[in-house]
């Protein structure tokens, strides 16, 4: 262990750590004696779960952009607004700042999240030696930002419960609100399925390889 700046890991000492309460147990242990959580030194199926949720999230994200989030009934005219359509309309009305915020929250951030999770999973699977701290930051940002995408769904909920003004104007949720919510939940589950310890194992492996090479 040269680059990593630590003495050793639980795994190298034949121990398994509880990710819930940080206690360590002999590798044979399957359940934490303190908090009762399941123990796995490295979750071997972690990456398959990540990819499964990732795919499901992406599949849900496509209809979320095709179908309307909101259906507005103004007098007798019904109009449906997709996420991008709504932003374009705002652009046309000159509300550029609001349009940018919507595009950022509902299009740019979800797409970046898909990209980031795929990058993390691939980097572990392919054993890329890219900067661990950078990858750790990406992981933390994805975990933190993920839940905030639900804001769109709540906006739809509030608008459609509030704007029910008889025959004048009423707003009701469109089918995209469901698939968008599912997509957010799936990406959250994908990020949470990722075992972040795998990021750091690559340096450990790298270092032991180097030790072997340079041994006299």
């Amino acid at each position: 262990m040269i680059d990593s700046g630590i003495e050793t890991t639980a795994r190298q000492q034949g121990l398994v750590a509880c990710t819930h309460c940080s206690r360590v147990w002999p590798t044979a242990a399957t359940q934490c004696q303190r908090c009762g959580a399941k123990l796995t030194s490295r979750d071997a199926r972690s990456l398959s779960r990540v990819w499964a949720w990732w795919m499901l999230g992406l599949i849900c994200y496509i209809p979320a952009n095709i179908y309307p989030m909101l259906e507005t009934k103004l007098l007798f005219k019904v109009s449906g607004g997709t996420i991008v359509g709504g932003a374009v309309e705002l652009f046309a009305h000159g509300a550029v700042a609001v349009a940018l915020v919507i595009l950022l929250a509902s299009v740019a951030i979800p797409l970046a999240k898909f990209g980031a999770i795929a990058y993390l999973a691939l980097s572990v699977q392919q054993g890329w030696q890219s900067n661990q701290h950078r990858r750790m930051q990406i992981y933390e940002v994805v975990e933190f930002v993920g839940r905030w995408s639900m804001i769109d769904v709540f906006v739809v909920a509030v608008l459609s419960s509030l704007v029910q003004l008889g025959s004048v104007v009423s707003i009701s949720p469109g089918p995209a609100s469901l698939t968008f919510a599912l997509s957010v939940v799936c990406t959250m589950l994908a990020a949470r399925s990722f075992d972040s310890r795998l990021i750091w194992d690559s340096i450990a492996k790298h270092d032991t390889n180097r030790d072997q090479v340079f041994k006299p």
Partner: protein
Amino acid sequence: MSIKDEQTAALADLIACPTCDALYQNVEPQFQQRAVCTRCHTVLSAPIKGSVARIVALAIAVVVFLIAAVFLPFLRIEANGFKNASSIFDAAFSFSAAHLVVLSIAVLILILFIPMARAALLIFALSPLLLQRPPFRGAYLAFRWSEDLRPWSMAEIFVLGVGVALVKIVDLARVEVGAAFWLFSILVVFNVFQDTLLCRSSVWRALDRARNGVRND
């Protein structure tokens, strides 16, 4: 002491970083100081004096506020003589009209039930510690669950969503915000406070001490 007990005791002196698996001696930092993993910079422990009492107090406040918020008016809208009032239940169940019942239930769970459950679990797990008593059976499980629920508790995101919705309709109609809206906004502040106070490893240590009959400061 058998060999197995000795091994277990020795392992109690070690902790592993939950994010990167680096192994450390289990040294409890002083109050207001932090133990940080030297490899991945995850905060391992950041004890705050009197945090358990404040966490329980905030959790009780959250439960009271949530119950009150359900029954108080949330938002009112008025345009061209038409009026409509909306409660938090209305907001959640707006989806039922469009055969999106699943989503209605999910919204209700995310903004009401999970915040409520988290607060209740924390009260159950930690309140005996305030009376210098050993924790209840299941306190460890309750605290673990409350931490697992943390990312799914979305009251603060809902409040921001309400803000965005109000901006969108402010030109269209006159909107009055009710008491429940303000309760929810204060709740968000409580949640932020609680998250800064709640140091996971300190709570585990406090639970261990209470179970072994050692006084918690």
